[in-house]
């Protein structure tokens, strides 16, 4: 591991300018950063300590019931905030399920979004895979039980963030600061699929930092659910996670639907085909089951991860029904 210095920026703009230099990396919670340093995935000379910046660690209620979340807000803070729990429960639940209490006390929201994938080929310092400039994604013909079933290729990583699917489902907007100025973008545009560049997972090229995450208020009659399936209940990564936001009218007909899956694809994976089936139809278990099938219709599993398809189907159905507060009783 290369020795590094820690430098403190005076403000956000100078942080962005400092980070425009490729020999630097951003330090926030430092959780994944430390891993990537040890695994030779990054070898910066200097870490720009974003924790030195004031005012970026707050959760504020925006006019109209939305949230403005500072990038340095800790996962534990997000999970416990009454404002988040009240209107954006799926986001709070996603934050609360990540990692361990100790890690949630350190890890930041922006860091959670920007963390590198957990693929065991990528993380192995001895293996030069496609994501590290090599020619081959070893997951394709290798041990791929935890890899992508949707949107894979040429890299088959799954996006590791617990928060990402929830923020996509809630239509969050990110404020990105770069040396040439600030801009806002829909969170769905933040993630970079491997077809565009297998070596990164998002648009945070050197010099860009997240300075705010805005989450609009959901419809007053919408309900949300976040579910995950994971092998271990203590400290594990999900095999599949699902966020559903559903609003029903007085007749039980779906008037708003959002279904986003995590851990199934290299980016958070929205399921428009499922949403389309739901919209305008009366929600019951059968409809939710058909929506779930549609969500996975494009699944292209590898040799060892086909089991994630039925898990994802079950979770999508359950999340839709739970978001609508309907029982998941088998017929």
């Amino acid at each position, binding site marked *: 591991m290369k020795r590094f210095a820690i430098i403190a920026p005076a403000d956000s703009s100078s942080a962005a300018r400092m980070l425009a230099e490729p020999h630097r990396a951003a330090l926030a919670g430092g959780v994944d950063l430390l891993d990537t340093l040890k695994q030779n995935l990054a070898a910066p000379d200097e870490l720009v300590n974003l924790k030195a910046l004031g005012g970026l660690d707050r959760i504020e209620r925006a006019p109209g019931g939305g949230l403005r979340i500072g990038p340095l807000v800790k996962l534990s803070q997000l999970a416990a905030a009454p404002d988040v729990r009240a209107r954006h429960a799926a986001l709070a639940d996603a934050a609360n399920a990540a990692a361990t209490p100790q890690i949630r006390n350190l890890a930041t929201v922006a860091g959670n979004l920007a963390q590198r994938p957990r693929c*065991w080929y990528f993380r*192995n310092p001895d293996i030069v895979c496609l994501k590290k400039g090599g020619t081959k994604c070893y997951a394709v*013909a290798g041990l791929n039980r935890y890899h992508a079933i949707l949107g894979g290729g040429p890299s088959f990583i799954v996006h590791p963030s617990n928060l990402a699917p929830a923020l996509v489902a809630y239509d969050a907007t990110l404020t990105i600061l770069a040396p040439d100025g600030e801009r806002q973008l829909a969170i769905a545009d933040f993630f970079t699929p491997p077809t565009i560049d297998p070596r990164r997972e998002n648009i945070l090229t050197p010099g860009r930092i997240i300075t705010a995450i805005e989450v609009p208020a959901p419809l007053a009659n919408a309900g949300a659910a976040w579910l995950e*399936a994971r092998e*271990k209940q203590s400290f594990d990564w999900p*095999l599949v996670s699902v966020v559903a936001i559903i609003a029903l009218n007085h007749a039980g007909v779906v008037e708003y639907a959002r279904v986003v899956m995590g851990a199934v694809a290299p980016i958070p994976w929205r399921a428009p085909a499922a949403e389309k089936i739901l919209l305008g139809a009366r929600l019951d278990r059968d409809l939710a089951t058909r929506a779930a099938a549609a969500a996975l219709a494009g699944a292209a599993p590898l040799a060892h991860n086909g*089991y994630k*398809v039925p898990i994802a189907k079950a979770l999508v159905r359950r999340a839709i029904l739970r978001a609508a507060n309907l029982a998941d009783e088998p017929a």
Partner: protein
Amino acid sequence: MARRVTLTLGFAGGTREVAVVIPDAEPTPWQWGEKFSVVGVPTPRADGPLKATGRAPYTYDVQLPGMLHGAILRSPYPHARVRGVDLSAARKLDGVRAALDRSGATVRFAGQEVAAVAATSPEIARDALALIRVDYAPMPFVAAMDEAMRPDAALVFERGSNVAAPIVNAVGNVAAGLETAAATHEAVYTTPVQTHVSLETHGAVASWRGDALTVWCSTQGIFGVRDDLAVHFSLPPENVRVITAYLGGGFGSKFGAGHEVIFAAELARMAGAPVKLMLPRADEHLATGNRPSSSQRVRIGAARDGALTAIELVQHGSGGIGGGSGSSGPYLTLYRCANLRTEERNVYLNAGPSSAMRAPGWPQGCFALELAIDELARKLGIDRLELRRRNNPSPVRALEFEIGARAFRWNDRSRAPQSRGPLKRGIGVASAAWHGIGASGPQAQCVALRDGRVQVRIGTQDIGTGTRTIIAMVAAEELGLPLDRVTAEIGDTRYLFSLPSGGSLTAPSTTPAVRQAAAHLKRKLMRLAAPLLGADSDDLIIRGGVISARAAPNRSLTFAELCRRIPGDSLAADGEHVPNYAGYSLTQAGCQFAGVEVDCETGIVRVTDFVAVHDAGVIVDPLTARSQVNGGIIMGVGFALFEERRIDPQLGVMVNPTMDDYKLPGILDTPEIQVFFVEVANGITNTGVLGLGEAVHVAATAAIGCAVADAIGAPVRDLPLTPDRVLAALGQA
């Protein structure tokens, strides 16, 4: 001189009189109905506060003046000829003080050590590794058993086969037994390689003064390490001192001086400075041993009444470049059967070597055999617990089944209707057995100090089971002292010899030596007290720290007052473990019941509850004993649900050598555990204590496997019981 005594031995299910001849110096073995004052009282471990507050000095914590830090370079290739190792750039790096080349001609697994360095900081040592140039010529490798067994497979060892000669055990006639059976069952069960994952990794701090070597070492056997180092460096054993004050787990992987200990000592000698070399976590998974894999073809048959008529095991297992992958123990032990045959072959792979691991072979064999018993029970239409009872050879286990079934509510739960939703509940039961009867060799010294305290000094080490605590308890019991007067000094080869902590034999081997030493000390102290109390020393008794004569109980002397009369600094007496007596029983039984909940749509298994019933002779400390049972079960949960060394077929490297990807159970994965002990007075030693560490791990995985099959109505015959396999068994994936 020896004397003959008649002992009342046995357990709640029955006792008998057993005559044994014991040496004169030896206290009479504890018998059935013995009245204890310290032994048997639930006692928090003596070093618990030190451990919980981080003040217990583990090898990892040792810091010496001028100490260097070692690191090891390992092969990234599973099989390669090493054409050259160039250490020159590493040696030139500022801060590097020693480097050694240990490549040999061929590396046979990814992770095999090639070179090592010592430097002034761990960071410089790691940087130096990156500067070592190794010229590898990669060779074809074999990463899986089926591949290795093909006729055209690459050979792990150039001379010889990848498949070792079989080890066969047989009695009776299996074919005939299957012929007469009313029901038979045949299937293949597999278990993966499991790594030990001791929380403290392997390693040592080595320090030379002239030709005397002192090594602080994370080991299960300080004397074994001492002797290995003495042989390696051609030193008399007394020139090597090994210290293990505290040990963060071993599970069978820390016998003797491994390469990391020898490297630490070699580097320290080269550098002329102490060297600390503790392995990183990945190295621990790759290169310090593991539980071998197994593929077990089981054939089993029973008569209509459930009596087993035949059991056969044909297995292949792999210890990587090592051997010892057999799993026949449970087949040959757990159930009565006249026709038995086991055939075990080790298959060599280009993968890290096996080592002993908590009940070697038994959790694997128990998983396959017990699942097969369940599958047979279904064919016979006999309750699964009942089938086990009918074939159970152990009267102790018969009682344990009864206690366990009641606590677990086996009858109610086995008749409970299954839920209609996706969450299905299941139950399972499995038999355990072990032979934690100890071995000869340990000697102990009991020392009364002038200030009224007693120290027990013995060259054992605490693998984490509470050895300090039970040693002090046994001595306090024998000396008639409150426990707070007695401490155990262990973990140093300067003390009298004791054995490695493995084979469940620390408690059974050390406590008899400790008790004998305490009895000898008591005799010396009573001789000191006799004139003071005007009584014959044989008439004196000591209880609760007060000495008095049987005849005149109103004249007394406290232990502290007596100790002030010690003429020197202290009064010491030695004791030894004498060879075991015939006693009541040389075996241990045990059984475990597991409850699980399976989500049939996700395939995710949760272990909800366990009932464990075990015997280990006299239970010295029910609290630390219960901890061992908890640990054995939690480790069984890991083996059942999560753990597997995964080797990529393209590269031949382990892809999950991290705490992140090598999945261990956490607190939320831990079931509710109820523990019951059946006390057995076995009289095989003066304490009759048996070891627990392995007996409590044998059946846990099997019980979970049986419960999962019960929950989903189909067996999952391959460990770990991951969602993909559960869903496949359900026809869902």
